[in-house]
C-alpha cells in the first residue's frame, strides 16, 4: 500500500521485539465495542496515475475563464522561481522551528519577511503571519482591547466601506469576548467615509477605529483625518491595507500626525495564487510598544554560544503553549509556506517591481472602466480616486448577467447586491496588470452581447 515501507519480514521482527502476536494486539486497550467494522463509505484506493487522471478531468471541467474579480483576492503574475523554491522539500516539509539550530533557513527567512513588512507598512515590528486578512482584523480588534488600558468599552468603529466579509469574520471570532462593532456609514455620493460622520462618537469611550485603504469599493479614503480623529478621541487606529497598494500609497505608519497603531491585511497579492480561496496569509505590524500584545509567532535575532548571530522564536511566553488560558491568541500553526512565497516574491520584484505592478493594475482598471461604461446601461458608481477596483451599476439584476458572462468564459465581477442593497444592481470589478487590452475588449464585447439579450 502506498507510503508504508514495511515488508512482512520487518513486521515479524518488530512484533517479536514488542512481544505481540499481531498488529491487532497493539490495539487491545481499545474496547472492542468501539472498533470500526467497515469503512464502506471510503472508495477503493487510486494509484497516482489514476488520481492524476481524475484531477485533470475535474480541473478541465472548470477551465480557465478570464477573471475580473478582486474583492480581496487578486490575480497577479508570480515569477516561476517563487513556487519552484517554495515547494523544495526543505521548505515544504519542515515544521514550526522549535529546534532553532535545525531551522535557520525558515527562521532567517521569517526575519527578512518581518523586516520587509514592517518597512512596507511604515511600522516598527511585524509578526510571522496569521491565517488571513479577515481573521487578522479580528485579532487586531482583540489586540486593541488588550493594549488600550484606559478604554473599557471594547467598542470598535468600522466603516461600512470596509470589506463586509472581514467584518462578518471579526464578529464571529471576537464577539465571544464581548467586543462591540458599530458601523459608520459611507457617504452615498462619494462611496467614502467622511470624517464628519465620526463626530457623533466624539467624547465617547471608543477603543479603536478601523479604516481600510483602499476601501472595499476600491476608493481612497481620507486616512489622515480618520487616524487623527481616532487619536484625538483616545482611540487606537487600525488600518486594513492591500500590501501591493503600499508601493504607491502612503503607508499607515505615516497616516495622520502619529501614524496608526496596528496594521493588518491579506498578503495574497504578494506571490500567492488565488487557488480557489486559499491558503493566503494575514499580516500584522504594529508599534514596538504593543509588541507584547501582538498575537502569532515572532522571530528575533540573537547570538549563539560562539557569539555568532542566529535566529529564534521569541516572546513565546505570550503564546498558547506557555500562557495557555491567558494567551494573546490560540494560534499555533499559521501560514508559513505562504510567507515564504511572499518573501521570495518581494525579493524578486523589489520596490520598483511592486510599484510598476501596482501602477499597471490601476491603469488597466481605468481602461476597463472606460470600455465598460461605453456600453449602454453600465454606469460608474463613484468617480473619486481609486486603486484597481471600481463599482459599476447596471440596469438589470446582476446575478443572471454574471452567469451569462461565465458561460462566455468571463468572470465579470463580485455581486454587491446582497451586501449593499442601497447600491442597486451593483458589481465590483477589478483589472490587474494581467488583464491585457485584448482581455478588456473581450469582456466589453461579452457584456455588450449579454446586456443586449437581457
Amino acid at each position, binding site marked *: 500500500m502506498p507510503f508504508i515501507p514495511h515488508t512482512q519480514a520487518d513486521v515479524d521482527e518488530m512484533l517479536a521485539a514488542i512481544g505481540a502476536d499481531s498488529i491487532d494486539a497493539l490495539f487491545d486497550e481499545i474496547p472492542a465495542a468501539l472498533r470500526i467494522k467497515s469503512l464502506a463509505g471510503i472508495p477503493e484506493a487510486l494509484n497516482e496515475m489514476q488520481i492524476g487522471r481524475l484531477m485533470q478531468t475535474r480541473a478541465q471541467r472548470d477551465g480557465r475563464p478570464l477573471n475580473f474579480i478582486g474583492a480581496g483576492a487578486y490575480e497577479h503574475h508570480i515569477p516561476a522561481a517563487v513556487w519552484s523554491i517554495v515547494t523544495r522539500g526543505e521548505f515544504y516539509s519542515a515544521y514550526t522551528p522549535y529546534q532553532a539550530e535545525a531551522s535557520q533557513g525558515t527562521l532567517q527567512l521569517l526575519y527578512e519577511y518581518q523586516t520587509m513588512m514592517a518597512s512596507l507598512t511604515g511600522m516598527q515590528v511585524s509578526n510571522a503571519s496569521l491565517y488571513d486578512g479577515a481573521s487578522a482584523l479580528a485579532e487586531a480588534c482583540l489586540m486593541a482591547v488588550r493594549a488600550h488600558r484606559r478604554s473599557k468599552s471594547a467598542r470598535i468603529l468600522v466603516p461600512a466601506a470596509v470589506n463586509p466579509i472581514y467584518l462578518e469574520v471579526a464578529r464571529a471570532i471576537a464577539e465571544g469576548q464581548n467586543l462591540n462593532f458599530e458601523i459608520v456609514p459611507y457617504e452615498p455620493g462619494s462611496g467614502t467615509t467622511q470624517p464628519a460622520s465620526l463626530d457623533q462618537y466624539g467624547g465617547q469611550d471608543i477603543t479603536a477605529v478601523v479604516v481600510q485603504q483602499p476601501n472595499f469599493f476600491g476608493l481612497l479614503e481620507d486616512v489622515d483625518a480618520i487616524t487623527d480623529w481616532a487619536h484625538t478621541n483616545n482611540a487606537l487606529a487600525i488600518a486594513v491595507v492591500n500590501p501591493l497598494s503600499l508601493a504607491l500609497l502612503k503607508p499607515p505608519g505615516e497616516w495622520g500626525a502619529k501614524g496608526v497603531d496596528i496594521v493588518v491585511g491579506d498578503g495574497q497579492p504578494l506571490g500567492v495564487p488565488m487557488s480557489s480561496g486559499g491558503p493566503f496569509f494575514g499580516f500584522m505590524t504594529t508599534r514596538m510598544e504593543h509588541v507584547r500584545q501582538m498575537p502569532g509567532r515572532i522571530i528575533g535575532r540573537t547570538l549563539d554560544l560562539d557569539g555568532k548571530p542566529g535566529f529564534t522564536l521569541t516572546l513565546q*511566553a505570550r503564546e498558547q503553549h*506557555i*500562557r495557555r488560558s491567558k494567551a494573546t491568541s490560540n494560534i499555533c500553526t499559521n501560514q508559513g509556506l505562504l510567507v515564504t512565497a511572499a518573501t521570495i516574491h518581494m525579493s524578486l520584484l523589489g520596490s520598483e517591481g511592486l510599484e510598476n505592478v501596482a501602477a499597471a493594475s490601476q491603469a488597466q482598471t481605468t481602461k476597463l472602466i472606460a470600455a465598460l461604461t461605453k456600453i449602454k446601461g453600465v454606469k460608474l458608481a463613484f468617480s473619486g480616486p481609486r486603486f484597481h477596483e471600481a463599482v459599476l451599476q447596471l440596469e438589470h439584476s446582476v446575478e443572471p448577467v454574471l452567469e451569462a458572462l461565465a458561460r462566455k468564459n468571463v468572470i465579470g465581477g463580485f455581486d454587491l447586491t446582497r451586501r449593499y442593497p442601497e447600491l442597486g444592481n451593483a458589481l465590483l470589478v477589478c483589472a490587474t496588470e494581467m488583464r491585457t487590452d485584448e482581455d478588456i475588449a473581450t469582456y466589453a464585447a461579452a457584456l455588450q452581447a449579454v446586456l443586449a439579450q437581457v
Partner: protein
Amino acid sequence: MSSIPSDLKFLDSHEWARLESDGTVTIGISDHAQGALGDLVFVEVPEVGKALTKGGAAAVVESVKAASDVYSPVSGEVIAANEALGAAPELVNTDPYGQGWLFKIKPANKGELDQLLTATAYEKVVADEAH
C-alpha cells in the same frame, strides 16, 4: 538556599509583602520563584492608582519559559511601581527582596497582613514542594 528576611510575610504562591514604617506595603516575588522562572526578560507592573484586591492578579513576570501572574497579598491602592524594572528586569533575579521590588500599596485593611505566612512558614512550603 536563600535567606529570607524575617520581616517579610508571604502568600503560598510565592509573593512577599513588607509593611514599611510609613504604613505602606511593598510587594515582590520570592527568591525561590525567581529561580524557578529563570532570567526575567520583562515585568509588567500595575498602574499607580489602580485598586487591587487580596489574591487578585496585579502584575506579570515574564521569562523565556513562562509568563506568570503575580497576585497581591493585600487589598489596597497602588501608590508606586518599580520603574527601574523596565530597563533591568533582572533586578528581580539578583535582588528579589530589595531592588527587585515590584510595587507598593496603601493597604485598605492592615489586618490582612496577619493572614499571610511568616517567613518560616513559607520556607516550609518551599521545602515541602521540593518533594
